[in-house]
């Protein structure tokens, strides 16, 4: 073994221990519910819990709407910026990065004050309005990731040439977006979607402050009141995140390699 790879192995192994020990510990803890033997009791209780099913379904539905909203806001913009208004790119990129700088708790605080029951736009006056506001908040949180994913996707396909080619063949805007652009950035959009899903599914702050029965607040509640179930839930949450990232990696294999450019 070369001298250079010794420190690399040491670094890697120390890092791997830091990341694997908590996972092993959590798994072990989650199996310890029954005294004296390992069992899946904690998981059985979690999956059998009505509130688990209700809050998880709620968060899944919110996540789906968040993804739809994100796609609607991001795709036309990213496309239009690439095609017609490249001078706006710095502004748009700056805005999409803002949610990384402004903490989620501040954003949702703003919502609560601006869109209360007595405001001109009383989102918070109804349950549906609050759900919509939660979806909007999540779309904001996911904005940096969604925009990056879609913009990267658009960069590889040379939007301008494709659009001009379609126009020469007589295609209208609706056709261009739905038949040409979307299929070509579908992989990128899906990657952004699964990342959004991973972020949104267990989100705590916004859901809790907007008082919605989402998965995140449920997790927190269980954590405060139970011993073994939280460990089981942590393993489940890790598995969900892992699943989302695996799908993204899997999708990346089908991403269009830029066909019309040398690199």
């Amino acid at each position, binding site marked *: 073994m*070369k001298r*250079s*790879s010794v*420190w*690399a192995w040491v*670094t*890697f192994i120390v890092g791997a221990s*830091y*990341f694997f*020990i*908590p996972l*092993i*510990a*959590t798994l072990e*803890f989650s199996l310890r519910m029954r005294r004296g033997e390992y069992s899946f009791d904690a998981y059985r209780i979690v999956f059998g819990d009505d509130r688990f099913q209700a809050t998880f379904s709620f968060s899944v539905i919110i996540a789906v709407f968040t993804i739809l909203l994100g796609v609607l*806001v*991001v795709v*036309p*913009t990213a496309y239009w910026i690439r095609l017609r*208004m490249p001078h*706006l790119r710095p502004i*748009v990129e700056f*805005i999409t990065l*803002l*949610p*990384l*700088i*402004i*903490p989620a*708790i*501040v*954003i949702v*605080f*703003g*919502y609560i004050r*601006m869109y209360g029951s007595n405001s001109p736009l009383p989102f918070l006056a109804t349950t549906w309005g609050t759900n919509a506001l939660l979806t*909007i*908040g999540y779309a904001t949180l996911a904005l940096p990731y969604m925009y990056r994913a879609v913009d990267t996707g658009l960069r590889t396909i040379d939007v301008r040439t494709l659009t001009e080619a379609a126009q020469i063949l007589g295609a209208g805007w609706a056709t261009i977006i739905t038949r040409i652009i979307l299929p070509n950035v579908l992989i990128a959009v899906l990657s952004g979607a699964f*990342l959004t899903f*991973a972020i949104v599914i*267990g*989100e*705590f702050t916004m859901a809790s402050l907007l008082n919605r029965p989402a998965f*995140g607040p449920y*997790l*927190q509640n269980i*954590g*405060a009141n139970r011993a073994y179930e*939280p*460990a089981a*839930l*942590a393993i*489940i949450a*890790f598995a969900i*995140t*892992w699943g989302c*990232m*695996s799908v*993204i*990696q899997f999708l990346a294999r089908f991403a269009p390699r830029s066909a019309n450019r040398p690199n």
Partner: protein
Amino acid sequence: MRLPLHWLGVAPFFIFALMFLILPTTYLVLGAFQNDQGGFTLDNIYALTQPSILAAYWISIRISLASALLGALAGFAIALAIVRGGLPNWVRSATMTFSGVASNFAGVPLAFAFLATLGRLGLVTVLMRALGVDIYNDLGFNILSFWGLTLTYLYFQIPLMVVIITPAIDGLKKEWSEAAATLGATNFQYWRMVAIPVLWPSFLGTVILLFANAFGAIATAYALTGSSLNIVPILLYAQIRGDVLHNPHLGYALAFGMIFVTGLANVFYIWFRTRSERWLK
């Protein structure tokens, strides 16, 4: 009528950003400088200097800075090991995949995992006790403390650094180190004079991102410590839920303070970048 049509394509985005990102934030910032009658005042900002709030900011900044710097250094070392360490290919791809997962594994479940590991009944705590070391009583460790929270935050900070900095290390051209070698430079001189200056902007940018990431995080800390650890996001959370400060405008000031700190970090970064911008295209 061409121009308005042009703008129609980006209008939904700008309306969305204005309504749900910029205006709500501005609303809070303005509120921080108003009194109950709507007049201008600096009282709310001044009120942030009361010891309990100042202490909250101080511990928040310390935790964020510590987890950002340690996360950045550890992440950098791991990225360096997988890119330049001569490790087999599977190590690199496995590390990248895992980092993608772990950087998104934050919030409440992360707190559970660390409680199960380093809590009073956690596996590591129990094992260490079996070996004769009580990390709580002998070493003074506490998962609900500064170091406990920092150690927990590193679980998403390190992988985030790995994900961001690996492409930057890949960007170091092999010819640079070869050119330096033929010019008589040692490996250390190459790193000091070329590689580190080239990587520095990406490194610093990521540190800032990690800092903001930790500074705004609340779910992990809240699930880990309830409200026993006095950090800013938890204080703000309590204020939003129940006006614990008994002054809504002080809540605005608290939010403004958070934006101010993360904003300041970014201003520092932008200032630094423009300084080194001379060689950045």
